[in-house]
């Protein structure tokens, strides 16, 4: 960062004056972020202190990195890390391309009405709450009474219970996630595709390109900036497997692969009042996510000129 010269300062002021309506519009968002994201950071110090109610949030004894080392030396540390990373990476690797492919396919549908109908159908599941979603999974996959459960055991000639196996937990988790969110996430790509000038398609047709070539040379390049930005953002969640879904799908049979950092924090922090310890785990988690995000941004900036900052 260079220091702000008077000239720069004047220019910033000019811009502020010129775009003041935009700034007014964004004020509520800034206020929300300050209240809910910046002010609570005051509580981060809890990760380095003992929690002492009678002395307030910042009054406990300073313990430095004690709680961090307690977590890293924990018997389950590597299992937790492994499960968290596997679930997140699988979700990103399979879940990230899905909406892009869906958007490219929907973009090929010529009839306006059908396209709208399809779009509506694929984004509807996004609005099912997680609790209901897991309830649906339990009903559908139940080996005794579920449609899918019955079908799979008939086809595969096994009596596998998809809800209760260490091998099927991650696939079930990820596939249901894609089914639920791909439609919703494809909207942004469809919006990007709608800005492509029709003249490009016409020119390609004259050059003798078929549908596939058009997708390859027109649609995909048009999506690249959006894809990169969203990918960098998703890196910020690399250790952020959602608590709710994992927690609800957990049972004693899939526990070896389904115990992730967030469910462990719940068990240790919320159920047994270990506030400092769970703050430390949460902070540890955040630092790693932050590191991934910054790294991805740096790589992308060097290679493609597209980046968050």
């Amino acid at each position, binding site marked *: 960062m260079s220091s702000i010269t008077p000239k720069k300062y004047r220019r910033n002021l000019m811009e502020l004056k010129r775009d003041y309506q935009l700034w007014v519009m964004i004020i509520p968002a800034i206020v929300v972020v300050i209240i809910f994201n910046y002010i609570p950071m005051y509580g981060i110090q809890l990760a380095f202190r003992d929690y002492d*109610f009678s002395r307030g949030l910042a009054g406990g004894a300073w313990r430095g990195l004690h709680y961090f080392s307690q977590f890293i030396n924990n018997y389950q540390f590597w299992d937790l890390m492994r499960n968290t990373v596997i679930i997140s990476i699988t979700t990103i690797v399979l879940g990230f391309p899905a909406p892009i492919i869906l958007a490219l396919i929907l973009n090929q549908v010529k009839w306006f009405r059908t396209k709208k109908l399809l779009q509506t159908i694929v984004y509807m599941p996004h609005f099912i709450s997680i609790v209901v979603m897991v309830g649906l999974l339990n009903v559908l996959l139940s080996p005794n009474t579920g449609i899918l459960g019955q079908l799979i055991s008939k086809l595969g000639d096994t009596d596998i219970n998809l809800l209760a196996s260490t091998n099927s937990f991650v696939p079930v988790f990820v596939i249901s996630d894609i089914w639920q969110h791909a439609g919703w996430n494809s909207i942004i790509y469809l919006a990007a595709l709608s800005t492509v000038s029709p003249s490009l398609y016409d020119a390609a047709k004259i050059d003798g390109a078929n549908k596939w070539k058009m997708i390859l040379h027109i649609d995909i390049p048009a999506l690249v900036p959006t894809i990169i930005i969203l990918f960098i953002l998703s890196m910020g969640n690399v250790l952020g497997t959602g*608590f709710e879904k994992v927690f609800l799908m957990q049972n004693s049979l899939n526990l070896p692969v389904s115990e992730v950092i967030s469910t462990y924090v719940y068990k240790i*922090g919320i159920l047994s009042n270990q506030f400092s310890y769970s703050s430390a785990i949460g902070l540890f988690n955040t630092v790693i996510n932050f590191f991934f995000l910054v790294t991805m941004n740096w790589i992308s900036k060097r290679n493609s000129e597209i980046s968050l900052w």
Partner: protein
Amino acid sequence: MRKSLSKVMKPVLALSLFGTILAGCGGGSNDGASSSNSGSSTNSTTGTVKLKGIMLKHPLTQELSKMEWLTKVEEQVGVDIEWQEISADWDQKKGALLAGGDIPDILIGPNVITDADFAQFTGLFQDLTELISTGGPNVQQMFTEKPETKLIATQLDGKIYGLPKYQRFWPDTVSRQYINKQWLDNLGLKEPTNWDELYNVLLAFKEKDANGDGDINDEIPMDFAPVGTTGFGYFQPQILLGSLGITLTDSSGQGYFTEGGQIKNYFVDDRYKQFVEFMNKCWQAGLINPEAFTQDYSKFQSVARGSGDKAKVGFSWGWEVTDRFGNTLAPQYESIAPLKVSADSNIKMSYDYDGYSLNFGGNMVVMSAKSKNKEAAMKFINELYNPTVSMQVLFGSLGTNIKDNGDGSYAVLPPADSQMDPGTWKWTSTWADNGPTFISDSLKLTLGTDMQSVGKQTEPLQAVLSAIDKDKDILPSMFIKYNPEDNNAMVLVNTNMINLAMSKFSQWVTKGGIDKEWDSYVSNIKQMGLDNNLSTMQKYYDDYKSKK
């Protein structure tokens, strides 16, 4: 974004921050006329004192304002309580409430504030020792009649923050074992008395048409409550460990039990291995509900209710037969005695002993240290422990739920709505088991049909339960208070141990392999620090015994 933690901590932090801001502004000017944390004002004309209270009630329970006995008690002691009624998510609400420091005058509910909370939130709750000696004759009476209650109430530092309950009539165990008598008769079989016979009976249930509907595949020979990830619970198969001489206490969810005055943990006990092998043998033969590990509790209950008068489940555990199998099927089932391991076994049998936790409860009512009207609040609390009031706290108001026979004896009335079962009726009408009660042993009260049948169904188990050495073979967790450091250290070990133990249990039952993995599993658990926990608990246990 920090996920789960921030979600919970944000309100906590925001609240506590807000609290500090408020405190900053207020600057401790507590001489004002009104104060925010206990809106107390005395109505000069009638002399009633206004108090605020929180009550943790069952989701079924009606509004407190409709409880006749409560209105009467409030009038009698001259208080008017503004109740906040909570029936869900108390654990999450509690953290924010306590960290904010703004609590009502009285909080009521089962273990509404835990011993760990007292240790952590020092100075927030009122030490009641003084108040009991000046204004709590009924509480004193309870302490004299049932010294256990005083033990439960007294913290390590000798202070009393939460008051206990004693409800006298409850059985010695939560789980009774039920088998379908009609199926046994259909197949010409006898009631099983040991594991081998149980296995053969279940196998017959599986392979023959036990319920006689022409379909040989619709019977579930054995079912148990869903085994969770945080330990065993009631109505789950670890009850069978009793056959091997292990006395569980309150279902010993985390494996700890006492044997001859020694604290042990069955997760590393060879007898547990034998039990898991038996469960695996049953699973291999298809005798256990394939959904036993994945179904939720409501499904576990509904499956057992079958369809119409056709039963589905052969053998299972439950609190009471109608609660477990529904009114239609209940007559088909009977409660059976504890099982031996084998016909020639001479191990002294045991069972899951819950007599203390069913009849006693801790921290049923606590008072805020900031309350402006401690005497009035104590007066109200003391009245709840008056045996004739306690009886109404537990079963409902006189007249509608309890009949006064006029000769100093009482009887619990059947539900006004004949479609309703007595248990539901009780929970609908009043605080029931969630309230602070002292049902004195001298009170003459005839129970309702539900409690009478629980008593009857416990009879087959009673001989074994009565033979348990309550002095040396029971883990008196209710009466033991750990200091925060010891408790925190133990929690960390237990969380890790239970994670491994529960996932291994379900794996070994469904896939086998316990023989190969047992030794490394035991050494893993030892590595986590189980022995430290055992010696900590032993220390506290010995201390408790020496004071008893």
